[in-house]
């Protein structure tokens, strides 16, 4: 059976992609950290690198900054999510919020950082608005949240990025067929017992949702504790967060700094583990406190406060995204634009021309990388899910994967990617595309799986039964029934996968050794050095590309595998 063989190899490959690079990568930083780095002639085990790291000035500050920003951002994003859900659960507004926030998910971290930077900049649009309305701030303000030493700008950007993710994951849990009706009923019961709707949601529904939300939250927390783009573009530089410092040490001209960087990457693993550990601890404490709160009989606790927080969150997000877009758009076409004028003195398309010339190659690379990584991921995920459904029918146990999926998302990229690069350079010297595509695949695969699994597992099994009883072999059922029926979710998963690939900064930079420029690497490079106008163009391009993918994913299922469309055009 060829199909059976395909399914088996896809399954093996699936786990290989998720686990092998991470394991190899971690090995590749642990060994140099303890002094073993043959490329530099270091073969004696020693703790010199660790001692050097501990002697670095400002190291505690770097670690604390990483912990503080990541935990604060996640707490804020989670609390805002709870407030939004509690206030708008089972109300039409929730759908509006969902539709409004979904696109934010597809904006790459780099573009988010650039946009927030524009919002907060002392000569940015907000400052100009205040200046033109209030007569104060006629000169750009001296202090700004940008690059502040406490990392408030980082927290803001991380929270803006995390909120839609946590919210959409929660909505996914709430819409699960076996939970939806039960939770709605329990919500109704709690209200009939005299609890206000906000309190009823938090007491009766949210605990169930949280238990399934835990892993995604830990993933965003882990990501935040080691993220590079946002602190690099918005955070303090002296000292920066640990992850940014690692990036600088690894890229240092002095190659011996690599040993120090490896030791720091190991420390980053500990920091991320520490952030997750602190979260789990806080969760326990919160649970103790919460249980007492739930059964104390108070029924209207904080309903007003929750409503206020929900509306505040919704308005701040809406305002932020609007200012973000307006800023980017106006800077991208701005000619001469002195402070504090609200609008540019002149409009020009020159920046777009410059960008079009400079970005031809990076754009092609970006599309190629996504075009290679995404189809591989989609095929692997489809075959994996098919294997799962076949195993279920044959009453065989199938190793559940959902936890494994989060491994590449939890282990910091800034740690394992360097080790991985070191290994691939040793095994495949001179290769650029292969390691880069693989490093993209590591991140694309989990998201494609998360997006596709729900629809795949939800498909009415009777369609498959009917097809088999009509004589269709498993391969035919897969190809002629399942794929066409799931065409729309497959396209959405592919668009998401492509969006994830488009946004990758660190994997592209490291795996290609800086030799493959993409839209994202160019945007970060321009933002940290060059012109604000060109940066705006790059950030907009970064948002347009995933948008194009999602539009395609929305359009294609209307045309393909849709007899209604054919019938309609035939009738004309």
């Amino acid at each position: 059976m060829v199909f059976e063989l395909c399914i088996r190899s896809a399954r093996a490959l699936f786990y290989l992609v998720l686990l092998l690079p991470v394991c190899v990568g971690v090995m590749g930083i642990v060994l140099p950290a303890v002094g073993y780095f043959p490329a530099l002639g270091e073969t004696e085990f020693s703790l010199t690198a660790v001692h050097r790291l501990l002697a670095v000035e400002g190291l505690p500050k770097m670690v604390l900054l990483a912990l503080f920003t990541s935990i604060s951002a996640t707490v804020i994003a989670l609390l805002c999510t709870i407030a939004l859900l509690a206030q708008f659960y089972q109300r039409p507004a929730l759908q509006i919020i969902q539709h409004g926030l979904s696109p934010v998910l597809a904006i790459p971290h780099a573009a988010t950082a650039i946009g927030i930077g524009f919002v907060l900049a002392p000569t940015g649009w907000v400052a100009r608005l205040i200046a033109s309305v209030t007569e104060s701030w006629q000169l750009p303000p001296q202090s700004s949240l940008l690059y502040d030493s406490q990392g408030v700008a980082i927290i803001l950007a991380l929270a803006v990025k995390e909120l839609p993710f946590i919210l959409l994951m929660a909505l996914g849990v709430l819409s699960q067929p076996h939970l939806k009706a039960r939770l709605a009923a329990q919500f109704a019961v709690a209200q009939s017992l005299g609890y206000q709707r906000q309190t009823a949601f938090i007491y009766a529904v949210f605990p169930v949702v949280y238990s399934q939300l835990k892993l995604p939250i830990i993933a965003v927390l882990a990501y935040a504790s080691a993220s590079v783009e946002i602190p690099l573009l918005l955070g303090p530089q002296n000292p920066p967060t640990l992850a940014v410092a690692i990036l600088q040490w690894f890229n240092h001209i002095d190659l011996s700094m690599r040993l120090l960087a490896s030791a720091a990457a190991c420390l980053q693993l500990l920091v991320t583990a520490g952030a997750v550990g602190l979260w789990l601890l806080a969760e326990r404490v919160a649970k103790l406190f919460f249980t007492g709160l739930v059964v104390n009989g108070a029924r209207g606790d904080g309903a007003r406060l929750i409503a206020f927080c929900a509306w505040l969150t919704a308005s701040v997000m809406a305002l932020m995204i609007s200012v973000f877009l307006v800023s980017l758009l106006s800077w991208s076409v701005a000619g001469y634009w002195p402070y504090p004028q609200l609008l540019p003195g002149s409009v020009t398309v020159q920046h777009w021309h410059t960008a079009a010339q400079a970005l031809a190659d990076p754009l092609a690379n970006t599309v190629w990388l996504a075009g290679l990584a995404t189809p591989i991921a989609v095929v692997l995920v489809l075959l994996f899910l098919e294997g799962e459904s076949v195993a279920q029918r044959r009453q065989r146990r199938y190793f559940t994967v959902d936890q494994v999926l989060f491994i590449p998302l939890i282990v910091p990229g800034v740690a394992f990617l360097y080790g991985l690069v070191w290994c691939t350079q040793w095994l495949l010297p001179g290769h650029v595309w292969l390691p880069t595509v693989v490093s993209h695949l590591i991140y694309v695969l989990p998201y494609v799986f998360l997006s596709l699994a729900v629809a795949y597992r939800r498909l009415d099994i009777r369609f498959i039964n009917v097809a088999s009883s009509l004589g269709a072999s498993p391969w035919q059922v897969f190809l002629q029934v399942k794929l066409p029926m799931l065409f729309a979710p497959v396209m959405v998963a592919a668009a998401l996968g492509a969006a994830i690939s488009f946004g990758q900064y660190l994997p592209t930079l490291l795996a290609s050794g800086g030799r493959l420029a993409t839209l994202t690497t160019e945007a970060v490079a321009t933002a940290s050095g060059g012109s604000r106008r060109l940066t705006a163009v790059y950030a907009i391009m970064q948002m347009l590309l995933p948008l194009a993918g999602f539009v395609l994913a929305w359009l294609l299922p209307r045309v393909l595998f849709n007899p209604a469309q054919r019938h309609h055009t035939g009738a004309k």
Partner: protein
Amino acid sequence: MTQAALVLDNLVVQQQKQTLIRLSTCINAGQIVTIMGPSGVGKSSLLGAIAGLLPAGLTCEGTIWLNGQNITHMPAYQRRTGLLYQDALLFEHLDVAGNIAFGMPRGNRGQRRELTQAMLEQVGLSDMAARPVTTLSGGQQARVALLRTLAAKPAALLLDEPFSKLDSRTRQTTRDWVFTQIQEAGLPALLVTHDKQDALATGDKIIEVTPC
């Protein structure tokens, strides 16, 4: 002794070693045997066992003979046991003709098309070939579903409450038509229902099952 077309020899469906339903029966070509009983006794699981499509967690024991061949351990798609549910379950990514062609064995393209058209004409749906299935009425969908099943040239038919979602008028005409088709095709059929009218309309053997 001439053997019946479909023979269930002490067929038992189990859920974790616990017996859900047990049945031994012979069904001749053209005969429709009805299984009646309250919901939850595993009537549908029994059909699943015969079709080779038991849901996860259920197992079966015993032997299933179809035209003298032991099909107990055959994969579902080789058993040639046509299956009809209460929903028509037409594939929405295919039009009406496409659904019927899906059931048909491989062959000459023109012949397949002619055969599809002939089948549709037979049931008064000849102008519907290119229609999206979602535009069909419930009764029309039920007819297309049976045509699709018959196109696959099954050796037996398994009907899982196939009329329960139709309104009372469509229900009777569809039922009569389905039963006539089965008798004309000379197929052994097993009907699962909790509707007395359906059972009586077969004019054939009725087996009442009770929870084990």
